[in-house]
């Protein structure tokens, strides 16, 4: 059986023999002791604590607010700060050292073939709509493919094409340029350079066109600005990509 709380702080209490359950019997507890109590309480609390709750631990009539102000000042330039949340108080890691709570791990990834193809088409053909990407690829692209590129921040929605259905137009971002070491999008190698590099065969079918990529933030003549509804599931119908093209 648990007994009454035993005095474990003889060195602090003046009269340990006479201590009772009631704190009000210790008027000699000084301000430092009060600060210790609310500090410990705030430290151990699982949630922000109200001044009223703190007052319950202290002699009647204690000026809790002034104690809290003192404590806040004490912690002001520390690794932990006393913060007020909706009138209640809590100790919390100081924002400028919050990095200690973060560990970053880097996961090496590669885009899928479909992702790379889509990205390259956006790069060369921007501004380009989803339907145009699919037309150039010759296969449909899955919703996820463009989403990943958007998430990565390499592709962005530029505007809407002034055609029926007003499809969203896509383009590349500065992050895309940075990642691939391009100063500007026009640094992308053109047809002749790709041929010279052996990436395209010498005798291309007639009608093989490779646009000169252009990327300016300004919308082209056939683009309208985005209208803010783009984050909703688009109305365009998404054909599930042919299994074989994603690898």
């Amino acid at each position: 059986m648990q007994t009454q709380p035993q005095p474990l702080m003889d060195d602090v209490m003046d009269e340990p023999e006479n201590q009772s359950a009631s704190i009000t019997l210790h008027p000699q507890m000084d301000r430092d002791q009060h600060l210790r109590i609310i500090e410990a309480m705030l430290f151990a609390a699982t949630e922000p604590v109200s001044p009223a709750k703190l007052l319950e631990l202290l002699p009647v009539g204690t000026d809790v607010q002034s104690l809290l102000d003192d404590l806040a000042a004490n912690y002001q330039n520390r690794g932990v700060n006393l913060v007020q949340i909706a009138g209640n108080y809590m100790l919390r890691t100081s924002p400028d050292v919050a990095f200690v709570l973060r560990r970053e791990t880097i996961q090496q990834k590669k885009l899928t073939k479909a992702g790379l193809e889509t990205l390259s088409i956006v790069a060369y053909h921007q501004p380009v709509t989803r339907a145009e990407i699919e037309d150039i690829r010759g296969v449909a692209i899955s919703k996820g493919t463009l989403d990943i590129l958007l998430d990565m921040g390499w592709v962005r929605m530029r505007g809407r094409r002034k055609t029926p259905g007003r499809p969203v137009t896509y383009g590349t971002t500065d992050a895309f340029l940075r990642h691939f070491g391009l100063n500007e999008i026009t640094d992308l190698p053109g047809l002749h350079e790709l041929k010279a590099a052996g990436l395209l065969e010498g005798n291309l079918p007639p009608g093989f066109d490779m646009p000169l990529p252009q990327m300016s933030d300004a919308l082209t003549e056939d683009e309208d600005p985005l209208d803010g509804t783009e984050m909703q599931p688009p109305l365009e119908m998404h054909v599930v990509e042919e299994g074989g093209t994603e690898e």
Partner: protein
Amino acid sequence: RNHKIDLHRISILALADQYIAFIERAQKVSLELAADYLVMAAWLTYLKSRLLIPQAPKEGDTEPLDMAQRLAFRLQRLQAMRDAAEKLMNGPQLGRDVFERGAPEPLVIETQKEYGDTLLDLLKAYAERRQRKMVHQTYTVKKQATWSIKEARETLQRLLGAMDEWGTFDHWLEKYISAPETRRSVRASSFTASLELAREGVIELRQDEAFQPIFLRRRAVA
């Protein structure tokens, strides 16, 4: 056990009586106390017996007096452990007297994806896809644009009935050469087919001069 007991003066009979009486009472009183008492009484009995029974000298490694010391030691040692347990339990305990941080802030593991794709990967993907698409496209177009020799031959044979007079290929096949993408194919295939038909004696061909238009008509049945 708190009394100093002179073993030599203990009546073994009295002890045994006490012992038995105690066991009888034991069910009614604190059983824990009983356990301690029994252990002690058993020791005392054992020690007394050691005193009463003559010993072969040097055989035993423990003298009765030594044994008595050991008993005292054991009791003291157990008491020390009981005191230690009490001290430990009365000291500050986590979750009772002292507390750890109530709202620890969890470590956030941020997984950053790093894409290893290079510009070369990008260009390869583009070139490959474009090229594959073009091959695919060219094939489809050819299929539509090409007139096979068989097709040309069948068409010419179907037109034979009307070919009484000399007429050029373009004349007879007017409706097939209207589409520019198939024109070359229609001309080439129908020319080849016409050579076959001429050899078989079905039609006659005439060209007035090199690089001049070629005329054809049905061969008059002799």
